[in-house]
């Protein structure tokens, strides 16, 4: 084992140790259902923010309806579990694929639009999906929401303790974020960044812009659907209000506060905007107004975000991208 490997593996090991050893120990010692909920909410929103980062920060498509795809995933998982007896093992990929399929249908006509027109089209589509969730009572049970009583079944073994659910959520969130990290810090991710900078120029250079936009939109929605399924299984009850426009804005605020184009930034933004309102819960239900103020001041004073794209890329190259280190066994240039 070379020194480089240890250096590059160090941060990953620390993150894994915190997520799978230190945090569970802390949770067990505190033993409060409420803390579990907050921690799992923070994990799920980290995944949502990272998935939105792929499409908004990296591919540069301002997306104002992300929560709708999150909702689609949650509803698919919950309805499959409650009405059709399809468990978590099958329901989770089904939720992701369902959200991605809807994203594909939505993306075909709207991907020709740019900047604000695209943003408004996604707002409209998000609202349409929200209206369907709320008013298609025969299927979605309307404003009453769906209750899901079954625990998480993993290949015949049922997980229903809070700690067990925490481990499942943390594992899936970690794998998903790792996949998005590998996607966005690769040549593929660089192609997406070229769309953001100038999609006409990228088109002229031979990049299939429409296809890349549709793909990034679908990948992002897939992971939003996964996050939705995790949310449905952790709370056991979902209703359309969890997926309205305010949630889309909350996720967007996480991305903007963390820094557009920066994956670690999105995670920091998610943790900040979930944990800060929870910490201030004593003052009253101030979550949305805090989101508003944090969003406004971060645009005003930190337009690049708390952890902007350039420092984030340097950081990831140093800590995560072993291929970039001065190692004779590996290629020196480019992301692997």
């Amino acid at each position, binding site marked *: 084992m070379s020194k480089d490997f240890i250096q590059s593996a160090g941060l990953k090991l620390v993150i894994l140790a915190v997520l799978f050893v230190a945090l569970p120990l802390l949770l067990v010692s505190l033993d409060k259902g409420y803390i579990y909920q907050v921690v799992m909410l923070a994990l799920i929103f980290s995944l949502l923010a990272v998935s939105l980062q792929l499409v908004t920060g990296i591919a540069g498509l301002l997306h104002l309806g992300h929560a709708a795809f999150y909702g689609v995933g949650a509803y698919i998982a919950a309805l499959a579990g409650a009405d059709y007896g399809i468990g978590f093992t099958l329901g989770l990929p089904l939720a992701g694929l369902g959200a991605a399929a809807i994203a594909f249908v939505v993306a075909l006509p709207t991907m*020709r639009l740019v900047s*604000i*027109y695209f943003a408004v089209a996604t707002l409209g589509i998000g609202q349409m999906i929200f209206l369907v969730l709320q008013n298609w009572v025969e299927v979605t049970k309307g404003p009453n929401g769906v209750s899901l009583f079954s625990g998480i079944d993993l290949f015949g073994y049922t997980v229903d303790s809070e700690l067990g659910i925490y481990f499942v959520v943390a594992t899936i969130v970690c794998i998903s974020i790792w996949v998005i990290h590998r996607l966005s810090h690769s040549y593929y991710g660089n192609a997406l960044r070229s769309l953001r900078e100038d999609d006409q120029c990228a088109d002229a250079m031979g990049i299939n812009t429409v296809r890349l936009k549709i793909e990034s939109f679908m990948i992002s929605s897939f992971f939003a659907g996964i996050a939705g399924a995790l949310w449905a299984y952790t709370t056991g009850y979902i209703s359309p209000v969890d997926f309205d426009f305010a949630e889309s804005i909350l996720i*967007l605020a996480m991305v903007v506060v963390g820094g557009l184009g920066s994956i670690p930034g999105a995670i920091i933004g998610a943790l900040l905007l979930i944990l800060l309102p929870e910490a201030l819960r004593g003052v009253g239900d101030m979550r949305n*107004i805090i989101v508003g103020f944090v969003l406004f001041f971060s645009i005003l004073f930190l337009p690049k975000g708390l952890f902007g794209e350039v420092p984030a890329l340097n950081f990831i190259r140093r800590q995560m991208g072993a291929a970039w280190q001065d190692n004779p066994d590996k290629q020196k240039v480019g992301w692997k």
Partner: protein
Amino acid sequence: MIDPYYLQQLTIGISLGMVYALMAIGFTLIFGVLNVVNFAHGEVYTIGAFAGIMAIAAFGPPFLVIVFIVLAVGALAGFGLERLAFRPFRRFSDEASLKSRAMREATLMSSLAMSIIAREAMELLFGSEFQTIDISYLINKPIELGPVTIVNGDIIIFVVSVLMLGGLQWLLKYSSIGLSIRAVSNNPLGAKYVGINTDRTIVLTFVIGSMMGALAGILVGLYYGAVFPSMGFIPGVKAFVAMVMGGLSSIPGAVIAALVLGVAESMSTTFVSSVWADMVAYLFLIVTLVFFPQGLFGARRERV
């Protein structure tokens, strides 16, 4: 002979459409001068409605006085909005940065943040439920017109809106303020070179647009008797749809599109349950963006 039911729906649709038109014009004016979307316009509408009912609760003035109070509050809201959410991001005045995507998206998100703050602050102050309004001020007294029953609100909304729209057209065509607004929306840099105070013009545009938005808010509040902090979001989206359908820069286009939208929405309740009426606006939005990206009445413009 047309079924009176359809005439009934038509009057409701025209009232709705007039309200959307008042709001859409605010959007169109602001988009014209700054080339950015003002997401906080829906909150100006809510602020107008709240100002009106607070005036009623405080000293019960006659209707015309309420209108003027609401207009003044709307003007103030527009001024404050421009100061807080738009001015700080207009650091550079060259053509490239005025049209740059970073600037558009920064103002879009700052106005979004402002709208969240305004809505949540109202919710903390007044609670999220419907506010109580003095019954005698509601404008829903029925008037029989042959087979059709309309309410006096339909007439009031129509008259007030037509007056405001006419006044705006006069202002834009024949006053020096209107001339400078048209100049800035045509070419901000050119307007600056010929000695127009562009900052002042932008503030005035926000003031005029927000006055119309606030007036729409109180008219709808008294028409339906429903005033609550999140009332502005859906009309805001619909006014935006009307602006896009009208072709972004065209005021008559926005008014016609708003009327079409209002009538289509009220007619749609004949065929589907009223909870789906909002769907009509979103469908119009997507269809317009996909098939008529220039809008129905707009001139050609850069790529959407």
